[in-house]
């Protein structure tokens, strides 16, 4: 099962000045749904500052995340689509139009859930469909594929 994605954790057609702004939006969405504290956004930014833009795991898609800690309140996902794609500095997968935020309260339970993302995005059209979505219902319908058994 994917980590929960409540409607409140979805932001469509957002504006971000740069990758930090885009990650912050994903963090804001997690804070809105109660999955993380507002400070979690800065933790996710720090991971990218430390390790580089490896979170851009496919063309146009970033999976922002950070270690479980005091900022992570519950397992949860957020989805942010950007009106204008931003560069993360990735060698192959820039620019990013969809940012997923991921809050995990422990690193074990988490692995099985995140793997569900493969069920969504192994369909190569999923990222552009998400980027083009105009309603939270559309986003939820696309993300529902993650609940399939692999």
């Amino acid at each position, binding site marked *: 099962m994917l980590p929960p994605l409540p409607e409140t954790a979805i932001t469509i057609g957002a504006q971000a000045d740069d990758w930090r702004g885009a990650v912050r939006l994903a963090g804001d969405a997690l804070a809105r749904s109660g999955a993380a504290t507002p400070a979690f956004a800065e933790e996710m930014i720090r*991971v990218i500052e*430390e*390790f*580089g*833009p*490896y*979170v851009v*795991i*496919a*063309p146009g898609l970033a*999976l922002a*995340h*950070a*270690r*479980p800690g005091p900022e992570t309140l519950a397992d949860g996902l957020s989805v942010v689509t950007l009106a204008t794609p931003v560069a993360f500095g*990735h*060698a*192959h*997968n820039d620019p990013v139009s969809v940012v997923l935020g*991921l809050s*995990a309260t422990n*690193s074990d339970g*988490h*692995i*099985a859930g*995140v*793997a569900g*993302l*493969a069920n969504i*995005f*192994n369909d*190569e059209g999923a990222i552009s469909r998400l980027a083009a979505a105009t309603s939270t219902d559309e986003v939820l319908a696309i993300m529902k594929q993650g609940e399939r058994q*692999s």
Partner: protein
Amino acid sequence: MKIVAICGVGVGTSAILKVNAERALARLGLEADVTASDAANVQVAAEDAQVILSSPELVSRIGKTFADVVVIENYFDLDEIAEKLQKAIG
């Protein structure tokens, strides 16, 4: 055979890489034990591994290893993963 998928903090992207590596192996008809690790623990996790799967950005974190380092650009592209795994171990 042992394969280790790494990511920066060990909670997110390595899990995706692990499940898609397993799918790519199944497609190739190969069997391997695929585990996920964060970059900090890769030396221990990959001690007896034949292959380390990594994103381009994390290669420099791996350090000395006897394993083949396979760099995956698109974590959701089973064709890319299968092709690169086959080259490394086939």
